[in-house]
């Protein structure tokens, strides 16, 4: 199947087009099964590829055939696949998460009037992501990147009748577009210098040193591509769209956060890693952006009450972690992609679990929840597993990936490591806070609690699948060295030794944060927490306002609004008045003159012809009196006249 890997993006794309254009729309439509079937096929395909790669039946990167696309001047551009370790893992993760999300949505979206369209969009979304992951051509990556922007717009605004989703979808689209501009410029810069969009060729060129690719170019291109990644992967300062994107259906959030969209930015930076390797400055900026994002998002998650927003900030924070990993060298590269893989499992699980809770409670507000563990056993247990995974509890998948990143960061800069460790503590704190507020203690909204019930098995089975993966994937992939064998940079040193206190300090932070969380939120009433909030209200307000980033961008929007109004005023008052209206007046004047000439001369001539004809007719009329003998007389006279004329000649 590996020779037909191009089917992986194509099959969902075709399926989504079929689902969109054919078949019956409605809550009972069975078109979703086609979409799920297509995704299942892709998943099996990616499984077989992953299996072959893990058992070394094929060597990575696999030389997949490519197709000529078009020729730009002297530069041929081709459509090809880049099947290397990251792509194989990512394909597996994306297809699996998308498959599970789609199965889950059978329950979650059940009864929605646009049931079928949802699946078409999700299929399209996944197909774009798969195209991005597998393509060897940065131009195709960019195209898929934009297609993903479109599908995220459609899916976040899926319930577009409501103002919230409509606003959020616009915000997501425009915010990410801001970054995409950088991506595109970076792409052009790379092409201008290297004359190709092919990632392997670009990497080869970068490896030849500063002669082939000057450091300044690598820095500029790397930073521009980073802009795209910042937009798509919701890094500081463009993370503002992600929390609002929670307005979309929860399975979509799971997809965006785990498999598609936000993973794309990380993946892009990983794909173009050679640029950052060539430019220490760009690499440092990647690391700092990641660190800043991880820390700020974690602090914002501390004060959120909306269960999905907590998870959204958590995603931003974890993506920051990955970005940080990508910025700290070869060890961080492997660790970041490993974290991307494990994070996909547990973040998808967390979102689907949150969706299950929302489905049962019909609210997002954690203050109205509580005590759900008795009612929703599957959901609470699977979410607990995911929480342990994301917080890095030993043995769970997040533990391995997070430790790997922390170790890589420590090797790069202990200061960064300290902040990252603090962020890990914050993560532990807010994740346990979320779990305690949702599932532990006594119900706070009795009516909603009584209404709640466990979700159908079509929703819980995907949760369990993801729970198993969240628990075991890290151990399996890390201990066997399978991940590192496939995903590593040439210069990486295998099995580096890390100081033992890294592990101990991480565990200590975990225990401390979990304990603090229990003390504040796990004991039924939140008296201590409320007291703390009252004492530190300025900080809380700052965090709830998301450090003012939203306001800042809103100010930018308002500024451009004012600019637009000024332009409008100039347009209306000056351009319209002077050019349009004056020209109109001149035309009117000319038309009046022409009208005058027309009336007087042309019409006059026409009328004159008619009048003369009338007169002539009136005069001749007297001759024709209906007397047959008169007519005969005229004939005789005429005949005589002609006879006389003939005789005269």
């Amino acid at each position: 199947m590996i020779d037909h890997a191009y089917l992986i993006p194509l099959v969902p794309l075709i399926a989504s087009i079929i689902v969109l254009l054919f078949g019956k729309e409605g809550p009972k439509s069975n078109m979703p099964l086609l979409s799920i079937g297509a995704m299942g096929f892709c998943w099996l395909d990616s499984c077989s590829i992953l299996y072959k790669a893990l058992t070394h039946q094929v060597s990575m990167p696999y030389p997949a055939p490519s197709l000529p696309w078009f020729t730009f001047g002297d530069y041929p551009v081709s459509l090809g696949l880049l099947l290397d370790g990251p792509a194989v893992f990512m394909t597996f993760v994306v297809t699996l998460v998308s498959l599970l999300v789609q199965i889950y949505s059978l329950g979650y979206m059940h009864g929605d009037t646009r049931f079928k369209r949802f699946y078409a969009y999700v299929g399209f979304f996944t197909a774009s992501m798969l195209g991005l992951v597998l393509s060897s051509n940065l131009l195709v990556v960019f195209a898929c990147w934009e297609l993903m922007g479109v599908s995220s717009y459609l899916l976040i605004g899926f319930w577009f009748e409501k103002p919230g989703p409509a606003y959020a979808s616009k915000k997501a689209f425009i915010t990410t577009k801001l970054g995409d501009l950088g991506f595109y410029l970076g792409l052009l810069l790379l092409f201008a210098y290297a004359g190709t969009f092919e990632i392997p060729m670009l990497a080869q060129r970068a490896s030849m040193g500063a002669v082939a690719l000057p450091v300044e170019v690598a820095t500029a291109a790397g930073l521009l591509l980073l802009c795209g990644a910042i937009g798509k992967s919701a890094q500081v300062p463009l993370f503002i769209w992600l929390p609002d994107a929670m307005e979309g259906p929860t399975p979509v959030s799971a997809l965006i956060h785990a498999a598609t969209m936000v993973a794309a930015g990380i993946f892009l930076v990983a794909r173009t890693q050679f640029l950052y390797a060539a430019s220490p400055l760009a690499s440092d900026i990647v690391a700092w952006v990641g660190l800043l994002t991880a820390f700020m998002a974690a602090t914002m998650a501390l004060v959120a009450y909306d269960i999905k927003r907590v998870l959204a900030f958590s995603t931003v924070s974890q993506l920051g972690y990955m970005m940080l990993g990508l910025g700290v060298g070869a060890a961080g590269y492997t660790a970041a992609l490993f974290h991307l893989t494990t994070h996909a499992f547990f973040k998808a699980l967390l979102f689907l679990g949150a969706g299950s809770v929302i489905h049962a409670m019909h609210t997002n507000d954690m203050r109205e929840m509580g005590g759900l563990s008795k009612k929703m056993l599957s959901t609470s247990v699977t979410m607990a597993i995911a929480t342990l995974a994301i917080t890095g509890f030993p043995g769970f998948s997040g533990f391995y990936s997070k430790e790997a990143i922390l170790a890589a960061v420590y090797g790069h800069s202990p200061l960064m490591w300290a902040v990252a460790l603090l962020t890990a503590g914050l993560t532990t704190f807010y994740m346990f806070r979320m779990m305690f507020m949702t599932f532990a203690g006594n119900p706070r909204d009795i009516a909603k609690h009584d209404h709640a019930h466990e979700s159908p098995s079509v929703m819980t089975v995907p949760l369990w699948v993801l729970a198993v993966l969240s628990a075991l994937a890290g151990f399996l992939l890390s201990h066997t060295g399978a991940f590192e064998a496939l995903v590593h940079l040439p210069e990486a040193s295998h099995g580096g030794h890390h100081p033992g206190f890294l592990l101990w300090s991480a565990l200590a932070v975990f225990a401390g944060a979990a304990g603090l969380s229990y003390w504040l939120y796990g004991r039924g009433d939140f008296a201590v927490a409320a007291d703390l909030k009252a004492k530190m209200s300025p900080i809380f307000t700052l965090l709830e306002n998301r450090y003012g980033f939203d306001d800042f961008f809103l100010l930018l929007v308002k500024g451009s609004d004012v600019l637009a109004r000024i332009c409008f005023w100039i347009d209306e008052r000056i351009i319209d008045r002077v050019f349009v209206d004056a020209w109109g007046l001149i035309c009117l004047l000319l038309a009046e003159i022409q009208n005058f000439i027309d009336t007087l001369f042309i019409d006059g001539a026409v009328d004159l012809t008619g009048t003369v004809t009338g007169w002539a007719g009136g005069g001749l009329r007297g001759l024709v009196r209906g007397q047959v003998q008169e007519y005969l007389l005229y004939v005789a006279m005429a005949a005589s006249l002609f006879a006389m004329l003939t005789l005269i000649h």
Partner: protein
Amino acid sequence: MTLTHYLALGAGLFAIGLFGALTRRNVIGILMSIELMFNAANINFVAFNRFLHPDRLLGQAVTIFNITIAAAEVVVGLALVLAIYRKLNTVYAEDYNLLKG
């Protein structure tokens, strides 16, 4: 008797016929006057035939045709007159002015 005598006779007959056609009120009279003009023409045909080409019979043949056609014309003309008389109850040509403009 020269050709001139015959032509003069024809011309005189034609003039009488034309005068009658222009001045008679009675439509039957007009028809009769037209017959006179026909015959004036016939005399011309025959005379030209006799004096210019005595070895041929073309003029005489045309005259025979003319006599036949004149007979048919009189039949049609009288039938029309009869029909008009039944409709308008008059034989005076000045009353036949239904088509006047």
